[in-house]
């Protein structure tokens, strides 16, 4: 029986992968060929999706992108034995796109049947949890601190310190909350890992629970990811069956349960305090900090709120040791980061690499330039609150500190590419407009400032002479200063970053 891997994953699915499942099964039956269809996640090469693979005597052979029209052809070409075909990719791991990556967090993603505990264990899964069960809270937290892991959601706060804070709180109930409200445009790494290797997230959350003394975890998932919800729930059921979740995990006397909770289409709920409010069933309005969620979080109890990638990176750290993880990266940016290349890009997808490569290497070596073939004009890194960089800044190293020095932020690692058709005044206006639509409304600089921002940019663009334009630029700068320093959270506080970076690097676009 030949194994045929067809991703059950949103990108592949959005391009017709689900149709392939039936088409391939039917064709195989018609031809009396014995195949087993395995549902893996995506390996992250979105540009090759739907990417199907067959397990042949000489290893796994990939074909992509495959459409239903290719199926008869593929069977004619004997693809189940790796036959020659226009869509043949060969061993996908040998493609430069994969060969040049450094996959720690995503090591299993796209390779295993996504929700299978047995396959997960066959590639190192749950070793980290077993190691965690063999040590104590201090031991786990020490490993996390030594690994240098910083919050991958965007704020880059050291994970070990956050866990220490929660562990040190004395409370009858503590929580682990996974922030899976991946709302930043250009980011999809959370989704990819949850769909391709969901057990790594569950394992990471369980280890976090052991470390801080929490027995209840929630995954706050955005509602735009319905397929992810189904996959996570399958994975939770399988982990419960195998006793890697639930009561008395692996006879350790420790318990941990996880529930998936759906958001309802509010970008602001990716902000941790807003997320907690939403999880309590309320309006997703942000809370004033302090108190930190680590001390008074969900229902006022000490709560670890970590991003998906932070938590999914925990198992490999506990499996291979903090030294191994910290051996990647540079300076204070240790380990690897799953970068996501999207927008106008020829070879978009997920690239996990140690910190330190340049933006240019990412876009040119992996992304292979723009999809339209036109010259690149601007790159937005870090989601809708990240700076727009011109071509001249592409040699900036992807590293938290290096990016901050260049006036940007790495955020969640999303990289969106624009070609020369982009109008940057329009993009700046959109940043303000987006803030106006998605503001929770609690603080004035964000709620009102964003509306005024749209108006000011409109006046700049339609100014009759340079004097009038200059006057409006002063208003915009003043407005941005106010938003930056007086907003309660990062939404209003960071919206000026894309706006002012557009003004700074693309001034000409505001003069038409």
């Amino acid at each position, binding site marked *: 029986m030949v194994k045929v891997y067809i991703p059950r994953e*949103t*990108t592949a*699915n*959005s*391009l*017709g992968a*689900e*149709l392939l499942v039936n088409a391939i099964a039917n064709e195989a039956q018609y031809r009396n060929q014995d195949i087993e269809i395995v549902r893996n996640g995506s390996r992250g090469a*979105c*540009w090759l*999706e739907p990417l199907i693979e067959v397990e042949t005597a000489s290893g796994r052979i990939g074909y992509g992108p495959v459409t239903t029209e290719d199926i008869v052809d593929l069977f004619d070409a004997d693809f189940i034995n790796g036959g020659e075909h226009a869509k043949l990719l060969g061993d996908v791991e040998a493609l430069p796109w994969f060969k040049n990556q450094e996959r720690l967090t995503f090591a299993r993603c796209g390779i295993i049947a996504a929700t299978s505990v047995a396959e997960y264990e066959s590639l190192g899964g749950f070793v980290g949890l077993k190691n965690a069960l063999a040590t104590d809270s201090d031991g786990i937290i020490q490993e996390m601190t030594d690994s240098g892991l910083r919050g991958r959601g965007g704020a880059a706060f050291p994970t070990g310190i956050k866990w220490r804070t929660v562990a040190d709180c004395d409370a009858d109930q503590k929580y682990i909350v996974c922030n899976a409200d*991946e*709302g*930043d*445009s*250009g*980011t*999809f790494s*959370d*989704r990819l890992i949850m769909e391709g290797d969901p057990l790594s997230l569950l394992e990471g959350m369980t280890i976090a629970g052991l470390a801080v003394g929490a027995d209840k975890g*929630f995954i706050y998932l*955005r*509602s*735009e990811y*319905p*397929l992810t919800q189904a996959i996570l729930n399958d994975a939770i059921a399988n982990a419960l069956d195998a006793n890697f979740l639930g009561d008395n995990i692996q006879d350790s006397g420790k318990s941990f349960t996880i*529930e998936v909770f*759906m*958001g*309802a*289409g*509010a*970008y602001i709920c990716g902000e941790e305090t807003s997320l907690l409010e*939403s*999880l*309590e*069933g*309320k*309006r*997703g*309005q942000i809370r004033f900090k302090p108190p930190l969620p680590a001390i008074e979080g969900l229902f006022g109890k000490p709560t670890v709120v970590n991003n998906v990638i932070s938590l999914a990176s925990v198992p490999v750290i506990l499996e291979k040791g903090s030294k191994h993880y910290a051996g990647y990266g540079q300076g204070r940016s240790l380990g690897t980061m799953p970068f*996501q290349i*999207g*927008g*106008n*890009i020829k070879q*978009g*997808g997920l690239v996990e690499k140690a910190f330190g490569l340049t933006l240019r290497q990412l876009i040119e070596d992996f992304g292979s330039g723009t999809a339209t073939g036109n010259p690149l004009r601007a790159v*937005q890194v870090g989601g*809708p609150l990240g700076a727009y960089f011109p071509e001249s800044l592409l040699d900036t190293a992807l590293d938290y500190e290096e990016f901050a020095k260049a006036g940007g932020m790495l955020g969640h690692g*999303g990289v*969106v*590419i624009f*070609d020369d058709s*982009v109008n940057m005044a329009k993009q700046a206006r*959109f940043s303000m407009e*987006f803030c106006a*639509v*998605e503001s*929770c409304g609690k603080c004035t600089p964000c709620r009102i400032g964003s509306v005024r921002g749209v108006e000011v940019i409109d006046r700049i663009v339609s100014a009759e002479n340079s004097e009038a334009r200059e006057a409006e630029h002063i208003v915009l700068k003043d407005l941005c200063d106010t938003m930056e320093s007086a907003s309660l959270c990062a939404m209003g506080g960071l919206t000026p970053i894309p706006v002012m970076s557009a003004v700074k690097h693309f001034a000409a676009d505001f003069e038409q």
Partner: protein
Amino acid sequence: MQQLAGSIKYQEWNLDVAKMTVQEFRGRTGGVMLALHKIQETFGYVDDSAMSMLGKVFNLTRAEIHGVTSFYHDFKRSKPGTYTVKVCQAEACQAMGSEKLTTDIKAFLGVDFHETTANGEFTLEPVYCLGNCACSPNIMVDKQTYGRVSIDGFKTLADSLATSATGENV
């Protein structure tokens, strides 16, 4: 562009049914959100009469329930069309021409955002990122994401959806 999923069949609004379906969320973490999701999924929207009903179930005021319902984009207050089409408006899709696509879709359907076509088939909504940014521009029809959407692809899809909704050619 091939159709990848059918429509979600909503029930006619019924307060008694709604009340029954939300009982299980009493006392659950974030119960109000769970209840609103359930109602939204069952009926396609949250009727005004649900406000005081949910208030009683969760021991909250009508204003508080209204506050939660109105905060989130997902919870609709009037009956949507057979299909809800969401067109991504965020940066990665903008970089691949989503603005033009949006204009073309609006023109093709003859509606603006938050409106439903006269025949009740399509409700059009904006959405900010579907997490498929390497295959932009993206749209979502009910719970199905479609990547690399062109206006011609959309027209084919819309025709196929309309046909399957009316039961012809199934």
